[in-house]
């Protein structure tokens, strides 16, 4: 444990909710419950709702906690297990945002049976743990009274429905847009993209277009013509949730142009014997290191992630910039029930620290630190493809995990040759000896394995110092 880990730290994203604040300490997350939220929390536990949700693996475990750290005053303290990975919705591929949306709706529908509803619909209240979505905010539950409205409806649409629609109806990937609009994508933006066909869809009308129109009309009228609000029957609340559930579960991403690397698994430039050598190298490395969390940078469809899991990694977080490849990885994870989390990452522009005070949502470097790293057939994409100096790429990779496998692909390899086909070779420093020198400056090289005749080589390193 580092000195920094032993310090109690308030989670920077927890300032919005007056019901409680969240702190991190060692392997625990500690949550204050303020007086205003105490009755609702007690009802969540005493009604049996928490137990029912936890039994299904939908809600994070929580236990009462005796404060010995001298934390600020609170009516009650709770502790949760600290999840090793926190990812954000703008890093999720389509299928993961869809799973998170369905989990939110399922939690609400179950909670309603116990006279509870959710007071918000933040996508940041859902984490992926061991490959499965998990609701992590126990203070979002409120006592439901007949006639109550779904106050999180707008937030749900902005943070779940609209990003999914961007991809499913308009063929626009939502991640970059979402990253620039942390609170979600507005209904007005979806309306602006809509054509006459969407105005004929009853679901588009009911969940997106009419609310946008009513909101605009209300803003124009102000308070001069108030509308009486009738109580919403419980069955109306449930119909709203069920209809969204049916709609969202049937959405599929629309790909207008097939992406570059999705056929990589089929058309890659390896010989099968070389793949075997690579797989053996991964198996040996993973079975010796036994990582709790392994980061697979450039995971593609998750071939090597699956091998690492079979060899003894407890959980793998895979990163790729290709949405089609990520979809394949998600499908593999679903079919084989793998604890694999495939995430969207443009490694030349990883998630920054952003939001309020530039710390509300932490950047890539703060959140993704694993026990082991795989970066196979990856570095040439950054060095040759994006003009990033080789030394900086090596530095960035070894900061992610203390041990790992990095593959070096020389210029003579057909893959790199193809990248250089139409551009000037401005990379005189891109050669294996230089790579080795940079790696040796911060790590101990454990092994070097040549895996192809073209000179592809896998280096295993162990970081020296910090």
């Amino acid at each position, binding site marked *: 444990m580092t000195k920094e880990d032993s310090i109690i730290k308030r989670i920077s994203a927890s300032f*919005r*909710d*007056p*019901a409680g604040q969240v702190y991190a300490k060692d392997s625990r997350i500690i949550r204050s419950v303020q007086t205003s939220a105490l009755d609702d929390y007690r009802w969540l536990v005493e009604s049996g709702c928490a137990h029912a949700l936890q039994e299904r693996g939908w809600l994070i475990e929580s236990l009462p906690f005796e404060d010995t750290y001298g934390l600020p005053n609170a009516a009650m303290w709770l502790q949760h297990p600290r999840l090793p990975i926190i990812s954000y919705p703008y890093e999720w591929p389509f299928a993961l945002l869809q799973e998170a949306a369905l989990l939110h709706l399922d939690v609400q529908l179950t909670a309603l049976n116990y006279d509870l509803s959710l*007071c*918000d619909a933040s996508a940041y209240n859902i984490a992926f743990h061991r490959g499965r979505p998990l609701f992590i905010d126990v203070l979002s539950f*409120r006592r439901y*009274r007949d*006639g*109550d*409205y*779904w*106050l*999180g*409806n*707008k*937030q749900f*649409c902005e943070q779940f429905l609209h990003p999914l629609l961007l991809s499913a109806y308009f063929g626009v990937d939502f991640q970059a847009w979402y990253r620039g609009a942390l609170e979600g994508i507005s*209904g007005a933006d979806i309306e602006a993209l809509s054509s006459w066909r969407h105005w004929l869809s009853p679901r588009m009308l*009911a969940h997106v277009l*009419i*609310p*946008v*129109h*009513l*909101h*605009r009309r*209300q*803003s124009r009228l102000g*308070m*001069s013509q*108030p*509308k*009486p*609000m*009738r*109580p*919403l*029957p419980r*069955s*109306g609340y449930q*119909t*709203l949730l069920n209809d969204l559930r049916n709609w969202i579960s049937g959405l599929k991403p629309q790909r207008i142009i097939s992406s570059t690397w999705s056929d990589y698994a089929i058309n890659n430039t390896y010989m099968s014997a070389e793949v075997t050598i690579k797989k053996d190298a991964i198996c040996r490395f993973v079975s010796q290191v036994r990582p709790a969390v392994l980061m697979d940078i450039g995971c593609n469809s998750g071939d090597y992630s699956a091998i690492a899991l079979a060899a003894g990694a407890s959980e793998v977080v895979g990163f790729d910039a290709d949405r089609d490849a990520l979809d394949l990885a998600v499908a593999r994870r679903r079919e084989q029930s793998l604890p694999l989390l495939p995430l969207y990452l443009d490694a030349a522009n990883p998630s920054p620290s952003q939001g309020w005070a530039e710390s509300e949502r932490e950047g890539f470097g703060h959140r993704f630190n694993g026990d082991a790293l795989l970066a196979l057939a990856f570095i040439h994409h950054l060095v040759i493809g994006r003009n990033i100096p080789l030394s900086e790429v090596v530095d960035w990779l070894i900061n992610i995990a203390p041990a790992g496998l990095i593959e070096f692909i020389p210029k003579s390899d057909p893959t790199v040759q193809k990248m250089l086909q139409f551009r000037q070779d401005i990379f005189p420093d891109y050669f294996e000896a230089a790579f080795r020198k940079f790696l040796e400056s911060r790590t101990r090289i454990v092994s070097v394995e040549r895996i192809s005749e073209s000179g592809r080589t896998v280096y295993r390193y162990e970081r020296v110092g910090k």
Partner: protein
Amino acid sequence: MNRKLRALIFLCLIPSQAHAYLDPGAGSLLMQSLIAAGMSAFLFLRKPLTIIKNILQSVRRLIGKK
């Protein structure tokens, strides 16, 4: 009606506002009030519709017997 009073009534009619720490958005609330209105109209009309349906059914039965 006095404008302030009407605004006050509007606020009182929004349920559970005391718990809402996020802005629920007028559009979403008004849409839900439309759903509520639709459902209450359905519930309101269901009883007379059932009565008419029962009358029609008994008339049909009577005609059938004849």
